[in-house]
């Protein structure tokens, strides 16, 4: 397999095409602009559709239309643009339409800045828009994983008829790493008999809709959605534990932050501190199992995020008070150094 050196944003775009993405609708925003630029070049050559919409709102609704028509479709943006897409994401979830949404996060709130951040965690994992819903959230930490998770994202979206979010950050989008595009056998997925393709000889017309005027029906629909979400929680949670075999202390971090935390863990190991790293790969469903696995021997947890503390709530929910949970975060586009995190690891050991 040939290794190529690629930017995260471009590798993501290439992976999407290879995963069968037929349509892309987006609106420019830093730091994800290489992604639409790549697709603008490649899609027309490879039988796909690239369209720059008039706004993020329009883009996500184009996604709704194309997803409803039964094709694989993707959009991408960065934090402020994702806020604009929330309306559409809620509708996509309500109408159970599969699609992939990429958020290359930047600093907020408001216009914020264009530096890397992880402050959209709540928005991503709690729904984000109105109504009772969840989106699957994947958090890659390297360019290779970004590529691999794009394939998974499309498969998961189709399997569960649900939007899947890929949550990256400015660094991941901008960084270059070697990547291999492995050939993947197509997954066995349910046929899209629900798609509005025109009746084309079908007896009954298909309707894509999220409106249920009868509350009894809407409750039924919401319960059905939640049954699906429960199944996803049971089957699809993913994580990685590094340096964990004999660890007594654990750093918890995802995405680019997990990379820096990993460097800090290695520093601590050199000084004989028994510390490991829990790296959630799915942020929703949250990998509670990772904590079950280490709780019998864990003395304390340190959550590190590029935010003022969002994922730490899920860590606390997973630890259920059985060990102290500490937090260290940098925000607004600032990124901690490995040394900073190392100091926090030492503090954690001193405190517990």
């Amino acid at each position, binding site marked *: 397999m040939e290794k190529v050196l690629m930017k995260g944003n471009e590798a993501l775009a290439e992976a999407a095409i290879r995963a069968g993405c037929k349509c892309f*609708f987006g609106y420019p925003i830093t730091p994800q602009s290489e992604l639409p630029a790549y697709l603008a070049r490649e899609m027309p050559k490879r039988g796909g559709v690239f369209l720059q919409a*008039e706004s993020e709102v329009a883009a996500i*609704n184009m996604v*709704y*239309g194309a997803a*409803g028509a039964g094709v694989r*479709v993707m959009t991408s943006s960065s934090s402020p643009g994702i806020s604009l897409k929330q309306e559409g994401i809620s509708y996509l979830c309500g109408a159970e339409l599969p699609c992939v949404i990429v958020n290359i996060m930047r600093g907020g709130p408001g216009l914020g800045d264009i530096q890397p951040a992880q402050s959209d965690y709540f928005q991503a994992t709690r729904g984000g828009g109105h109504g009772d819903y969840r989106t699957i959230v994947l958090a890659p930490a390297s360019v290779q994983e970004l590529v691999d998770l794009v394939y998974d994202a499309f498969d998961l979206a189709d399997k569960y008829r649900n939007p899947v979010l890929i949550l990256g950050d400015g660094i991941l989008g901008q960084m270059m790493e070697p990547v291999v595009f492995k050939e993947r056998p197509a997954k066995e997925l349910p046929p899209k008999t629900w798609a509005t*393709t025109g009746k084309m000889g079908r007896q009954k017309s298909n*309707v894509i809709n999220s409106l249920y005027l009868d509350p009894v029906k809407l409750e039924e629909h919401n319960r059905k959605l939640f049954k699906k979400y429960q199944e996803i929680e049971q089957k699809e949670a993913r994580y990685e534990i590094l340096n964990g075999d004999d660890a007594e202390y654990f750093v918890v971090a995802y995405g680019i932050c997990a990379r820096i935390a990993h460097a800090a863990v290695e520093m601590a190991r050199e000084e004989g501190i028994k510390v490991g790293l829990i790296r959630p790969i799915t942020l929703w469903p949250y990998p509670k199992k990772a904590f079950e696995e280490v709780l019998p021997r864990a003395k304390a947890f340190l959550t590190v995020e590029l935010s003022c503390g969002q994922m730490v709530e899920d860590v606390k929910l997973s630890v259920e008070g059985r060990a102290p949970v500490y937090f260290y975060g940098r925000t607004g586009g600032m990124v901690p150094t490995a040394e900073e995190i190392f100091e926090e690891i030492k503090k954690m050991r001193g405190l517990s």
Partner: protein
Amino acid sequence: MKVVFERPKSLQPTKTHYCPGCGHGVIHRLVAEVIDELGIQDKTIGVAPVGCAVLAYNYFDVDMQQAAHGRAPAVATGIKRALPDRVVFTYQGDGDLAAIGTAEIVHAAARGENITVIFVNNAIYGMTGGQMAPTTLVGQRTETSPYGRDPQVAGYPIRVCEMLATLDGPSFLARAELTDVKNINKAKSYIKKAFEMQLAGKGFSLVEILSPCPTNWGMKPIDAVEWVKKEMVKVFPPGVFKEPKEG
């Protein structure tokens, strides 16, 4: 016996929820008749708006998507780009198309998106109970312009056909009035023309239809029709605003 009139195939037998004398029922039927006449029921996909016509997917017997408020042209764009050989239309009211969805309609038109838009203009918000619309006439009383629309406060009505006619993208733009047999037939001929444009790959087509809303105007159905004829057409002159040159 020869059939003079019967329910078109592309219209479900379902009774509509529309008020007595509402224009939506007629416009639904005209669209369905055109779909039947062009023989495109099997490959047509409609997009329902938010507004009184939100339940349009229950009435048309074609595949339908229900869109977020104002976003029907974007949703239709997604469908059409994914399935270019299908016929895609949106059905939108004045709040949906000319207020919250202004950006979407202008840009779909500017792109020359090869879709057909049925725009129902009744100068008021029906579904939410009679508030001022972007097409409410100056002086017209609504729930949110109780003293009559005052341009000093609420500005002026938007003429969608005229506005879109400044763009290069649209192939066919026309406005009809739902006032009498002759004009209803004319509305149908415009709708047919609009779909034919799409079938010929000519790009964006839109038919605006001035339609009575007796309930929210506080009028009897017959008076509402008269009001369209006397007042609305003064502000929104019917006619063709854009069509391809012959030849």
